[in-house]
């Protein structure tokens, strides 16, 4: 049985296709909540929405301030399921809406289906150690979902739907946007890389990463890292860290150098065809999850390996 009313909310337009497809799969009537311009409302309808609420978003507006109003609409129209795109803004909107609706926000759902008239959501717990299946019990189920969970349908430009523009300002008592700075740093798409070299805390200095770069360029691999390298050391951008809270990859080859192989990291590469590990500690957990391993000091072995590979 499908859910009568399914809503999806996204501040990122690139998520419209997938979320609309997911909502269509589970619901009879699909409502989209978007924050921007008319064009995207059309796109949401072509992707599967029957109805769009379009909230105003200007440079410097704090769209989370619409949370209460959105919750009011959800309540009035008795949505059974609300899927929110899990960007930082999306997460805040989801939590605020969930509190308004007196329920939890089930987070980062990796699979979603209906069983015995209830929504069942799957998501990782204990840092990726386990997958939890939860049957949602509330009248309105609120959850956050990222990309890659649903597959977008082909657009049907002939679909028709109702668009309601909400022109009121967001309710932002106590919050003022002073400035928006574009984030510097490159964008990488690790997901498309066939070969990935990942570095971890086994590297003692930032300069030493050069050795990993050399290996990556010798093998045509993209460079990635563990979370501490991106967040603690800040030697690489956040978009390069792999794992349960970072990027989840499916490369042909993943080379982990100076990475211990904690579950939170390995969840991101479990689907790699081949895992290669270099670590000086033969008891490191990575060696229980590798196809090819070398127990050795990366400072000694890595330059030699790169040289031999180039030869």
């Amino acid at each position, binding site marked *: 049985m499908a859910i009568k009313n399914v809503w999806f909310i996204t501040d990122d337009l690139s998520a419209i296709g997938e979320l609309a497809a997911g909502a269509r799969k589970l619901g009879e009537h699909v409502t989209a909540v978007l924050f921007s311009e008319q064009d995207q409302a059309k796109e949401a309808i072509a992707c599967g929405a029957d109805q769009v609420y379009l909230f105003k978003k200007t440079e410097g507006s704090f769209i989370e301030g619409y949370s209460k109003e959105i919750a009011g609409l959800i309540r009035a129209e008795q949505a059974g399921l609300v899927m929110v795109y899990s960007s930082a803004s999306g997460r805040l909107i989801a939590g605020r809406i969930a509190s308004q609706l007196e329920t939890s926000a089930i987070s980062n759902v990796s699979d979603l289906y209906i069983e015995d008239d209830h929504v069942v959501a799957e998501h990782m717990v204990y840092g990726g150690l386990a997958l939890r*299946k939860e049957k949602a019990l509330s009248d309105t189920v609120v959850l956050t979902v990222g990309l890659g969970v649903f597959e977008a349908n082909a657009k049907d430009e002939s679909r028709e739907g109702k668009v309601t523009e909400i022109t009121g300002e967001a309710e932002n008592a106590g919050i003022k*946007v002073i400035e928006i700075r574009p984030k510097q740093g490159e964008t990488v798409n690790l997901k498309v890389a066939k070969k990935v070299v990942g570095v971890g805390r086994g590297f003692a200095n930032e300069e030493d990463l050069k050795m990993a770069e050399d290996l990556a360029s010798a093998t045509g691999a993209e460079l990635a890292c563990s979370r501490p390298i991106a967040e603690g050391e800040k030697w690489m951008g956040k978009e390069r860290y792999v794992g349960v809270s970072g990027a989840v990859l499916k490369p042909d080859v993943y080379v982990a150098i100076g990475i211990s192989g904690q579950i939170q990291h390995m969840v991101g590469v479990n689907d790699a065809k081949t895992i290669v590990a270099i670590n000086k500690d033969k008891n490191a957990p990575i060696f229980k999850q590798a196809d090819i*391993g070398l127990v050795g000091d990366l400072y000694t072995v890595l330059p030699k390996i790169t040289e031999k590979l180039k030869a």
Partner: protein
Amino acid sequence: MRIIACFKAVPEEQDIVVEKDRQLNFDKAEWKIGTYDLNAIEAGKQLVEAEGGQLTGLAVGGTALDSSKLKKNILSRGLDDLYLVIDEKAENADTYQTAKLLEASIRKIGEFDLVLCGAGSSDLYAQQTGNQVGELLGVPVINSVNKITPQGDKVIVERVLEDSVQVLEVSLPAVLSVTSEINVPRIPGMKDILAAKKKPVTEFTVEDIGAAYVQPTSLVLSTQAPEQAERKLNILEGDSEETIDEFVKLFNEALK
């Protein structure tokens, strides 16, 4: 500034054992403070050091919280006092149940300027408790906060979004969830550990804080480790020329 830092007691993830049937075994896992909650405590500590005020620790949970080791550990991180809501009913709470209990606790503790939460709890990593608490308290709430600068009766915060950084002026009281990058939590020294002994600890039950029972919003059907891919486990050891040649040969085959 009156600051309340929220933390959760979680089982040490490195000591959770996956059984043959892919069930989790927690027998060897000691309870510790959530990794990313330490950033919230450190952020609070830095603000109090700079501005003066008081830093309170707050956790709700089951009887695991009633551990002298855990209490000593948390107090040695520079808290002025600690509030624990220990109740079997708070065990395995979902984010709404937790948020309701935290809301009631915070109202019971009294006046505050800032409630700080971590980026996510080490077990659920829902990244939602702070958002839900803020909405329940009816005060400004921001997540993904990477910098906090006090400015009179307001704070200026930097919030990291996917492709930009928002600079926000937030009036107090407010609830902020910080990132794990906002600081590097300090390791308690001997002095901190000794000082911890003198800090007051208040323990409440759910009845004490006057929180009504909230139904769980979901029923857990199963919690099971994902199936692991079979790996070849071809592990070589040493840095002799032959070993490296052998490794490079295997590596080269995989690269093809």
